[in-house]
């Protein structure tokens, strides 16, 4: 049969195998596409596999060479591993040489195949040919595993005394690998090393020193031993090397063997560290190296660098330290980037040793922050961060902020984080802090982290004399940098809070130039922000709140603001849509409570905020309650508590007991859960908030929301009709109610005394419904509210309450409004009140009827939040409370 007819392909492959490794490389290099290359490699691998399975001996080393090249290209070559072992087991040097090379390339210490080579290695380590011994040592040093290290350590130890220095040096490095893999073996190498350190051969000395350094790292005993036995000898060796005449074999740029210099200095550092005697011993030679070494070439600088590090690490010698810092100063002003890089690196270590000396180079270091090389910038920035203290924070920050304008985009994030951290940590006063942040935000607002701008807002609220200044500065900044997210957030928040100060130039500082901002301008800013689609949900939600606040601050813009808010009604983002609808209804329907609703935020507590950041959420919630209480005008201030919830700056709602934490949306959406969770507790300081929350919770309406609020509001409008309605209703009131209606102060107090925290329920009378004594629902220094309770036997769930308001002061209260809110399981219906003017000194009272339906009758008892607002001598007054002393079975 003609061998060329059907077997062409096969014979082609056959021929290909015979090609030299070079030819394969050429073929691969000739490939134009990756696919072609893959095809060639696949063919080669196929032929090599075939040769492997044929156990082809003649071309084994050639195949392995090809495999190594293929491996380097990144193709799998595991099938060649056994070939390595076979070549290593072969007797000849050429086979062993390529076999060991393949072993080191194709395998690593984690492959189990490696164990199979242990025996061959052992034989080769004992071979008569020193080059074969060298090959085995090299392979062992580069890839041995812990097991191999343990098995072959005695051979290597013996080879440290081999006659040929080239084997000794390989054995020394191999020992490093062995002691790293099996630290227990370290002590076996201590004595041989001492004799290596006395050698003259540079290779042996070099490797011996390196082994010594590694042994010192592993064993304190070894370190102590070498320190005693070798320090003086090593100092002498270094002296000899430093003073050695020109030796062409070892010369690098005019310096004899810089590698040996460096290793000697490194070992002296290890020996001198923490030992005064050893340090003393090496002072002179270190001074000599530091002063005499040429620094115009890299080799010299490498030695100086090592020398400086040694001086910094050994025991204190102020003269040497000055020398070292001066070298670093010279490095720092070097034009070579590498030298400056290592100088910065070393100065970081020097800061802890001698801060003052490093501070002297501050200006130069600051220049390095602006370098074009990212590696240098990073080092320099970290160093600057270490150098900042109270005395230099101002100029340093200025420099950094100035640089922020021109820095690379990818460096801005690092730089911004560092600046913010410095400013926060070391600001001398609030105005400086605010000023710096006002510079950072327009430059790098998109890189500022959330906690940074949260902290800024906390600081702003605490700096009451700077509110006007801050809001005006932010207004100016946002005109030019409206694309910086965090700037927009802070600005929008501040304009919402302090919009009036912006427009009226309130709280002008001397440094400020007055600006003219109309109310419309202020609204413009927020309108632009809310329309900017690149800004995220949080920002736009904040915009809506700011608008709501401005609608009260700027009554003339109210309609325009309403229009803007309405535009978000159709937003696909639930959060925006809901806010839009809720706020719209506040503007539309609830104008008389709006101003109270959108009052300015209470001052955020700095300690609380920083405590929060530290992660102690729970603990600080309670302390913040305390602070809210301690505020002057506590009553009026706490009315703003729900606003805190609404605005929730990420996490700082001082008065909210719900631990929903940093979730910006949750407090708004979870109004109902939070109100029912609070219902069992007595928190008079923040009562009344739920009314407002309920008003806002349109997303999840509960019956009383829709009914109570409009009723409350209608009271003041049509008092006359309500009085007549009351008359007709009052006929239903039981006799006990009548009694209390006219009762004076004293009996009421007595009645109250009869009510413990858990008043005994009077036995229900079947025909007439249960009878309840009147209760004092609320009492303050100026006001008392009595509740008369009654029930119809047919509907035990429904409780009728007649509220009687009495003025305890001598002045008349006008515009008197009573509001109430209840948890979800209750339904509340408020009748119109009997009037809105309460005469002084108990000379009259207002009554109002309430009807509470308890859907969980028998399981839960009634609780109620109340809020009373009235005018005293033309001044708005507000009182709030929670009523939880209702009889149990209502």
């Amino acid at each position: 049969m003609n061998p060329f007819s059907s077997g062409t392909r096969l014979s082609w492959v056959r021929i290909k195998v015979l090609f030299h490794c070079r030819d394969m490389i050429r073929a691969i290099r000739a490939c134009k596409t990756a696919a072609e290359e893959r095809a060639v490699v696949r063919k080669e691998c196929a032929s090599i596999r075939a040769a492997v399975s044929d156990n082809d001996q003649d071309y084994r080393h050639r195949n392995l060479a090809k495999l190594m090249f293929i491996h380097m290209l990144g193709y799998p070559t595991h099938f060649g591993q056994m070939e390595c072992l076979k070549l290593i087991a072969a007797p000849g040097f050429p086979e062993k040489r390529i076999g060991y090379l393949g072993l080191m390339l194709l395998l690593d210490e984690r492959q189990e195949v490696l164990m199979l080579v242990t025996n061959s290695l052992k034989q080769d380590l004992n071979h008569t040919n020193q080059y074969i011994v060298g090959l085995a040592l090299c392979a062992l040093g580069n890839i041995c595993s812990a097991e191999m290290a343990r098995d072959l350590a005695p051979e290597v130890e013996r080879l440290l005394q081999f006659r040929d220095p080239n084997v000794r040096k390989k054995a020394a490095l191999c020992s490093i690998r062995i002691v790293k893999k099996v630290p227990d073996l370290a002590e076996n190498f201590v004595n041989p090393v001492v004799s290596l350190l006395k050698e003259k051969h540079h290779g042996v000395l070099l490797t011996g020193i390196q082994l010594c350094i590694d042994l010192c790292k592993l064993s304190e005993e070894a370190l102590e031993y070498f320190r005693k036995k070798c320090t003086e000898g090593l100092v002498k060796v270094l002296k000899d090397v430093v003073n050695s005449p020109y030796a062409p074999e070892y010369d690098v740029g005019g310096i004899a063997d810089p590698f040996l210099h460096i290793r000697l200095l490194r070992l002296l550092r290890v020996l001198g560290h923490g030992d005064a005697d050893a340090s003393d011993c090496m002072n002179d030679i270190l001074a000599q190296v530091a002063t005499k070494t040429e620094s115009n070439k890299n080799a010299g600088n490498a030695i100086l660098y090592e020398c400086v590090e040694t001086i910094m690490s050994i025991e204190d010698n102020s003269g040497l330290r000055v020398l070292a810092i001066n070298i670093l100063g010279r490095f720092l002003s070097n034009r070579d980037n590498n030298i400056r890089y290592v100088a910065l690196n070393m100065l970081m270590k020097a800061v802890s040793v001698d801060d003052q000396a490093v501070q002297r180079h501050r200006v130069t270091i600051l220049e390095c922050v602006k370098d074009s090389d990212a590696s240098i910038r990073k080092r320099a920035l970290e160093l600057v961060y270490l150098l900042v203290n109270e005395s230099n924070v101002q100029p340093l920050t200025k420099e950094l902020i100035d640089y922020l304008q021109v820095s690379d985009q990818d460096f801005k994030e690092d730089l911004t984080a560092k600046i913010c951290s410095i400013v926060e940590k070391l600001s001398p006063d609030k105005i400086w802090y605010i000023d710096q942040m006002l510079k950072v935000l327009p430059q790098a607002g998109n890189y500022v982290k959330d906690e940074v701008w949260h902290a800024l807002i906390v600081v702003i609220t605490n700096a009451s004399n700077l509110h006007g200044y801050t809001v005006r500065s932010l207004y100016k900044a946002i005109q030019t940098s409206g694309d910086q997210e965090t700037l927009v957030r802070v600005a929008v928040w501040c304009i919402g809070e302090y919009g009036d100060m912006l427009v009226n130039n309130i709280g002008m500082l001397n440094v400020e130039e007055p600006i003219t901002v109309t109310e419309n301008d202020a609204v413009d800013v927020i309108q632009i922000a809310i329309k900017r689609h690149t800004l995220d949900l949080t920002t736009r939600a904040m915009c809506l709140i700011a608008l709501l606040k401005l609608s009260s601050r700027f009554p003339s813009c109210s309609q325009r603001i309403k229009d803007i808010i309405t535009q978000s009604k159709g937003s696909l983002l639930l959060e925006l849509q809901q806010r839009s609808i809720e706020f719209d209804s506040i503007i539309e329907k609830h104008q008389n409570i709006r101003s109270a609703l959108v009052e300015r935020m209470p001052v955020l507590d700095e300690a609380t905020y920083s405590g929060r950041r530290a992660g102690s959420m729970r603990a600080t919630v309670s302390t913040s309650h305390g602070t809210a209480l301690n505020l002057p005008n506590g009553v009026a201030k706490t009315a703003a508590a729900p606003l805190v919830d609404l605005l929730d700056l990420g996490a700082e709602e001082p008065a909210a007991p719900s631990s929903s934490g940093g979730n910006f949306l949750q407090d708004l959406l979870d109004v109902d859960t939070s109100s029912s969770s609070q219902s069992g507790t007595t928190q008079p300081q923040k009562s009344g908030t739920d009314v407002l929350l309920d008003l806002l919770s349109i997303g999840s309406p509960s019956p009383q929301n829709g009914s109570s609020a409009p009723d409350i509001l209608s009271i003041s409008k049509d008092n006359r009709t309500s009085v007549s309605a009351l008359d007709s209703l009052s006929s239903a009131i039981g006799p006990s109610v009548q009694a209390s209606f006219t009762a004076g102060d004293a009996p009421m107090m007595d009645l109250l005394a009869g009510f413990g925290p858990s008043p005994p329920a009077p036995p229900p009378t079947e025909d007439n419904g249960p009878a309840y004594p009147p209760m004092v629902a609320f009492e303050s220094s100026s006001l008392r509210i009595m509740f008369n309770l009654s029930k119809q036997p047919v509907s035990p769930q429904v409780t009728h309450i007649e509220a009687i308001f009495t003025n305890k002061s001598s002045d008349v209260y006008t515009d008197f409004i009573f509001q109430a809110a209840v948890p979800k399981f209750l339904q509340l219906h408020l009748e119109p009140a009997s009037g809105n003017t309460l005469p002084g000194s108990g000379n009259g009272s207002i009554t109002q009827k309430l009807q509470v339906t308890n859907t969980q009758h028998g399981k839960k008892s009634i609780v109620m939040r109340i809020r009373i607002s009235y005018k005293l001598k033309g001044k708005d007054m507000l009182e709030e409370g929670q009523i939880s002393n209702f009889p149990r079975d209502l």
Partner: protein
Amino acid sequence: MIHFVLLISRQGKVRLTKWYSPYSQKERSKVIRELSGMILTRGPKLSNFVEWRGFKVVYKRYASLYFCMCINQEDNELEILEIIHHFVEILDRYFGSVCELDLIFNFHKAYYILDEILIAGELQESSKKTVARLVSAQDSLVDAAKEEANSISNIIAQATK
């Protein structure tokens, strides 16, 4: 300690890799990809050090080849530059003004030389002459073995004529 040595061409092709710390095959190709992306894009006047995964990579460009060595944070970067140069000078002496093609076609020779300079990630020999002598001594051992094999096959060939 040097964790690995890489030679990468201007085009991103790997010309030599030597790993002194264990890296799996997957990690190796990832490291190479990452580093060539970082190093090949750096400008000419910048420092020769790149901070990478808590290590430092010292690199130096010679003609079309980048020589990279990965070291620990606390190691002496300037010395590594000297070691790279030491390696390059020895290659140059061995090949006689070395070029990238020499290293491609004689990649195994480049490895043999490197093995005489570094073991276990540490410098082994500071004398270029010694390295050259050791490598050529081993080369001549190989040549001698080849000649011997040739002469034996000649004898066999003659005997079987």
